[in-house]
């Protein structure tokens, strides 16, 4: 008899512990799930545009200079080579994402953060950058410069 009473008491305790534990777990999950999802930023409509018309006139870009432009929400760099050719690249350094600049004294593209060098075809020629800069296609149509992603 005494054995049976103690036994049923233990089962009741066991059930309560299981019940409370499961409830607490479910509660925790129902809080953590929304919070977890909330913390993940929604995909922002990244400008999918493959083509950008620059607010720069072709004649304003002098030989042996470069300037940064907005390509969607990332920077691009427009370069006029000493020979007078217009070229455009992604301005994001392939090393650690700094924005590169044109160095007229070296006549090539340079990243100030870790001394990365790129030549006028975007190829990484010195310093830590592991890959060339992404090249864009440049079209100077009359008064406008149109930059688009390669083919």
């Amino acid at each position, binding site marked *: 008899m005494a054995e049976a009473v103690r036994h049923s008491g233990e089962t009741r305790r066991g059930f309560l512990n299981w019940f409370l534990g499961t409830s607490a777990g479910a509660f925790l999950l129902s809080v953590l799930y*929304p*919070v977890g*999802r*909330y*913390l*993940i*930023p*929604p995909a922002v409509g990244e400008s999918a545009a493959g083509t950008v018309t620059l607010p720069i006139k072709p004649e304003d870009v002098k030989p042996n200079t470069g300037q940064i432009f907005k390509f969607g929400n990332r920077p691009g760099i427009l370069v006029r080579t000493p020979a007078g050719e217009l070229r455009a690249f992604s301005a994001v350094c392939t090393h650690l994402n700094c924005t590169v600049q044109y160095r007229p004294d070296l006549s090539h593209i340079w990243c100030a953060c870790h001394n990365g060098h790129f030549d006028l075809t975007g190829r990484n020629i010195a310093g830590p950058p592991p890959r060339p800069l992404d090249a864009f296609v440049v079209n100077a149509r009359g008064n406008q410069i149109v930059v688009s992603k390669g083919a």
Partner: protein
Amino acid sequence: MGTLDKGHGRLWLWLDERIGLAGLEKLAKKKEVPVHRHTVWYYLGGMTLFLFLVQVATGILLLFYYRPSAEEAYESVQFLMAEVEFGWLIRSIHSWAANLMIFTIFLHLFSVLLLKAYRPPREVTWLSGIALMAIAMGFGFTGYLLPWNELAYFATKVGTEITGVVPGIGPFLRRLLRGGDEVTGATLTRFYGIHVAVLPAVAALLLGLHLFLVQKHGMSVPPAVERRAGIRGTMPFFPNFLLRDLVGWLSALAALAALAAYLPAELGQKADPFASAPVGIKPEWYFMFMFQTLKYLPARILGIEGEIVGVLGFGVGGLFLLLIPFLDRRTARGEPSRLFTGIGIALILYMVALTYLGYTASATR
């Protein structure tokens, strides 16, 4: 150690040696809660604390998406409500828990007032409690502006204008609050700083003091219960009282979830400094009794502007509330104090009546 060690794992022992858990455990086990017919009022402070913790957690989450500038605030909240997963839920809970917290603070305040729990040696507990209520209202006032919508904009215009009524330093205070002569993006940045940095810091300090004092003095037994020897015994705070507290917290959470799901926080129109105030504009409900009082005051009272009389009146009223433990000498001596019970009831009736009128009286008349 000895008997206390029973039932504790190695981690507990490791931590105990380093940070002294046994002392905390002893403290928790020492606390006893008196059981009598007013015991139920003891749960309100804990519920307020719970809602405050909800505010801290959801507030931190909102910071992840919110942008405190006149150009972006409205858009960032709109983004949060429409795009961010569960963004509507987090914001709605923040908004509803704020309202529920102010409500439980009022209930807590009035129960303490009517049960005379401010009696010696709990005067400082009362003072810190009143200060915490003022801070909670400050949280409400500054937080209301942050979505930068039409209602928030005008509420802030009116609210800050009221400080300008204070004789002498009023205009200076108004400028200080607004960060300029008008409510602009500068006001928004200022309120943001107050809401997420200044008030939380002060609240944490005062809350620490308040809770420490409650722990130090224990629960106050109402003098009337004491006189009639109405205590039926005590219950251990840990775990008996705490588990009952927990039931209250879960109920509050259930209410919060239901309110947030069925009545999510709205955003309305973006603030336009060059638009007229919308018809029927009202403050948050907890400012309503003051708002309505100011409406009823005539333009001039004894040659002074009615507004000034009203604002000064509220100042004096607040000071009176703050000083009650020092004014109520009968309670301090352990005698019945009908006068202060009457004052408490009158205060409740006044606030309820004016709030009711604020919502029912015609706004255009």
